[in-house]
């Protein structure tokens, strides 16, 4: 897979993920409006889902592409996964009771993750004496990071009302 194609694929994945979260969030918000309820709870859940799925994707994609194609390409692909969700995140934050600082911190974490993990993958390739084992090790490391993030997901929970 060449570099523009990899980035395009990552961006399409990011856009697809953003669209799926947007459809779910808009649907639940519409139901809340129709029933006179507050859409803050479903908006907080949308923020949580959007953050968690992107964090897991970047963990797996970033290290692997960094190891395969270098840190620059890895960072570009990871950012392409993260950035398309920003309009949905901004709207969901506006409809939620989540603090602005928490939301910005969560997005900053994703951007930092998208920049750092490809560097780790790239470093792995350079450190390992046999370059062909770098790719599976990078993939395994990405999965381990994703699993760790899954385990601590509740620490990033957004407040659902207020």
């Amino acid at each position, binding site marked *: 897979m060449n570099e523009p194609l990899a980035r395009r694929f990552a961006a399409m994945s990011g856009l697809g993920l953003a669209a799926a979260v947007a459809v779910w969030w808009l649907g639940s918000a519409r139901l809340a409006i129709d029933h006179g309820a507050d859409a803050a709870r479903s908006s907080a859940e949308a923020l949580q889902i959007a953050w968690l799925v992107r964090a897991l994707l970047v963990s797996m994609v970033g290290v692997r592409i960094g190891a395969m194609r270098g840190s620059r390409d890895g960072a570009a692909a990871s950012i*392409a996964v993260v950035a398309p969700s*920003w309009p949905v995140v901004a709207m969901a934050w506006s409809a939620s009771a989540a603090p602005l600082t928490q939301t910005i911190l969560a997005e900053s974490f994703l951007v930092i993750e998208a920049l750092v993990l490809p560097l780790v993958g790239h470093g792995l390739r350079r450190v390992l004496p046999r370059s062909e084992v770098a790719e599976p090790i990078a993939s395994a490391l990405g999965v381990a990071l994703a699993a760790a993030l899954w385990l601590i997901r509740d620490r990033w929970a957004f407040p659902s009302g207020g």
Partner: protein
Amino acid sequence: MSRRLLLLGLALCCLAPASAEPRIELGASPAWKGWTRPGRATEIDIRLKSDVETRASLDVAAGRESIGADVELQPGRVARLQVTVGPAPASGVSVRVIRGPSARRDVTLAQSESPLLGVALASGELVTLEGFHAIALAADDLPRNESAYSSIDALIIDAPTLAALDQRQLGALVAYTADCGRLVVLNAGAEVRRLLDGARGCGTAALTNALSLPEAKTMLSASLATSTPPSLSLGSASTLARPSHAAWNAVAVGLALYFAAAAVALVYLPALPVLLLSPALTIAAIVALLQGMQPPSQLIVWSEGRSGAPLARYQAWQRFPGVVRERVRVPLPPQLGAAVQPCEAAQAVRFEVDASGGRALYAEFETRLFRQVALCYRGTFPMERSIDVEARADGSHAVRNSGARAWPSGMLLAKGLVHELPAIVPGAAAVIAADARRPAGDAAVRLASTRTGFDETAALWALDLSGVAGAPVDSTGWLLVSAAPKR
């Protein structure tokens, strides 16, 4: 010598502001001697006094609701303000003078699990009634705001106490009788009886006159044995509201356009700057669109009265759709501002009250996208509708306008069926055929049907709200007038 004069002048100059600092006296006492029921509103009577002319800022905090007012204080004169507070076990009243002292009083309310019986007798006697918690009241313990009457379940009042009530207290008491509040008046004069009889909302079931205390007790027990129409619950008018989808539509269209544009950009221009710029531009565009639209509030008024009664009670519901996260300050319709509270107790709202009239002028609250903050109003307004209905054997109804004013066309509800009711001039009659039925698909008709007993007949009209100052463009109102049918 000149130096001494200069020092004296300086001393006087420095002492003058210190001596001009006002001394503030603050007093706060709750209505009903501090008794209320859980979840019900009550009133706090606030007294302020200063030794100099000054402007004071008053703040009342009760649960998630707060009330603010600017009060002009005259030297030596007591300024009084009665504010309605929502259900909260304790309230804090504080007053602050600019560059001056501040004072604070805490008001604790006793919340009774048993129904409350107010006994306002000049003799100070206390009547006991099984199952009720009785409170001995003086004239000044009775509230000035009608909504504070929700704290009690029944009231016995005698003529001397009635005579000691001021105009606002009397107005609130009249509104309580119009709202089917259970009241026994002891030895009332003919004039007071006429006033209360004219306003009563539930015939003789709720308002009775007694000549002695034992008779008052017996009458109250008899009144409690009969059921009165259930009070309109807070926010019941909200069932007539249509949800506002303007903000949702704008966000949905904005996001759909973004996804379409981003997909096209990815095909033809998959560069990183494009990937970063398009979300940023989309956020800016949607926020600008939402800021620009500001959907108007929606007001719904539901009112009820008995045929021939001079007052109708109403419950109004106003919804403010939110579009962005911000703190908003909205003006309230002046005619409705006397008794306003958030429809949801969990909603934090600050009301700015006019200190001279006690009416809420503005409401301030946090809002956000898709949030629909609702405020509930209640009260009474003068009504001139008198309806005579005769049910005929063939199923038709003869309806006569026995009042002094013409009616617009409306609907007639009889025996669970809904009929079209034509406009009728005073003294004229119309026959509503049995087959002139219409389906009860309308939300207003459904609510009217639930509020009308099966053996009752009622007429439903749309209210003309053009006379309500400050009412939003999207305002709807209904008046349900019930009349027992003649056979």
